[in-house]
């Protein structure tokens, strides 16, 4: 799922303090699960903002949306959005932008969207996918060299792998060590002998903003 984190409160205040009516819109899907922008976080943020002297002249309302990436869910916020001078969206970057398209008001992000990741334990998420658009997990025993190797090396490891850890940080696992261990467990070390050729990055964000259109479900597209 998408994993995000609340921006520092000082930063949030600096972006909304000049408005008189701010609507905080939480999102009930990814950011709720990663405890960054759900109803609980929205209400806690509101109660903190109301304590700030810089926010004395700002009235705050909170609305809770199921999702911010499908337009029908916004209907629940329309009325409050009309009232507001600005909307503070607690959705991921997608939600913020989608809200901004709908409302002709400043829509401000409360979160920094970080990565596509998994929940390893209560309160602990790690990045595992970069949305690179050309998945090679089959070759690497299910461990992503793009997202989990600091250098996105396809024929790793590099010379900086030491003790199973990456040179950039002793807490970061070397992805290629993990790949090696996994392929060994699976009895498929032969995969490591295959040289993976240079990647076509045009399938990633490098090729420009991407889109998907399904002609089989849409009657708008022939």
């Amino acid at each position, binding site marked *: 799922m998408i994993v995000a984190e609340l921006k520092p409160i000082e930063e949030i205040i600096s972006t909304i303090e000049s408005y008189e009516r701010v609507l905080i819109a939480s999102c009930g899907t990814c950011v709720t699960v990663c405890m960054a922008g759900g109803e609980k976080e929205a209400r806690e943020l509101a109660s903190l903002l109301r304590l700030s002297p810089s926010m004395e002249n700002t009235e705050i309302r909170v609305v809770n949306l199921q999702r911010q990436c499908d337009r029908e869910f916004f209907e629940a916020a329309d009325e409050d959005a009309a009232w507001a001078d600005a909307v503070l969206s607690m959705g991921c970057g997608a939600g913020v932008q989608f809200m901004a398209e709908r409302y002709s008001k400043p829509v401000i992000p409360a979160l920094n969207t970080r990565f596509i990741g998994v929940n390893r334990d209560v309160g602990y998420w790690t990045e595992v996918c970069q949305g690179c658009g050309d998945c090679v997990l089959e070759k690497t025993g299910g461990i992503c060299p793009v997202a989990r190797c*600091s*250098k*996105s*090396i*396809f*024929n*790793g*490891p*590099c*010379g*900086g*792998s*030491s*003790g199973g850890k*990456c*040179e*950039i*940080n002793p807490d970061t696992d070397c992805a*290629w*060590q993990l790949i*090696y261990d996994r392929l060994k467990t699976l009895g498929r*070390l032969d995969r*490591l*002998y295959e*040289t*993976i*050729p*240079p*990647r076509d*990055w045009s399938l990633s964000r490098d090729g420009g903003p991407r889109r998907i259109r399904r002609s089989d479900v849409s009657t708008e597209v022939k």
Partner: protein
Amino acid sequence: MAGISRLQSVFESGGFAVTAEIGPPMSANASHVEKTADILKGIVHAANVTDNQTSIVRMSSIAASCIAQSRGVEAVMQMTCRDRNRIAIQSDLLGAYALGIRNLLCLSGDHQSLGNQPQSKNVYDIDSIQLIKAVADMKNEGVFMSGKKSKNMPKFFIGATANPFADPFELQMIRLRKKIDAGARFIQTQAVYDIGRFEAWMKEVRRLGLHEKAYIQAGILVNKSVKSIEMTRKVSGMQIPDDIVERMRNSDDAEREGVLISLELIDKIRKIEGVRGIHIMAVGWESIVPSIVKEAGLSAD
């Protein structure tokens, strides 16, 4: 087109190659490179010119290599994958060859977070093995990475690095093989301090016949002081036997001790079957290289 590089001919004629390093300055000062080149001229067969090592901005390897060659020292240009995409890499390779550079060492490159501009974007369009293959394809097939053929393509003598002390052993061997299969013809190793482990690595290299497919050069790092050797150990996680560190600690003349240690290591390394040269890294102390080469009884002639 000139013939093969001096370094390549030394290897191919059965000689024992000696190379050193030139670290370009953090400035546009050409004379720094010239001075270092002058120290090494006639002493070594070639000198590596590093490429923004540890992700700190320095004069580019291609420029510094040209300066070195203009002083009569053959360069081994280093190219990392960290800062350039494949377009820039291939473009630089055309330029480097046109300027007379003949040896190329291909590396992944230290991650930018280790340097002084960690905010920079992480390129790594291709990795070091893909780079080696691309350079080899230019040489052997006369093609760019796009598949487009062209005339007058660079024909570099391609090198790569290896770490005999990293784990897991098996994985590092796989990587070495892949580099050689991709086209690497000479291999420079991480600095050797632990002869026993190096011998074990060479044994496996020989078993796989890799020493016959590529020329192995052992790395020697010359330490000037106790602080230097302790930094080496800590920073790179290099395996340095305690007795060597103790020797540096206990000696009255650390510089001399550092030289003696290097000489002893060189002496032992030369006797190992399959080792075809040494690569001397005298960190910030290039001036010591001539005396080491001389005392080791090596020569660049």
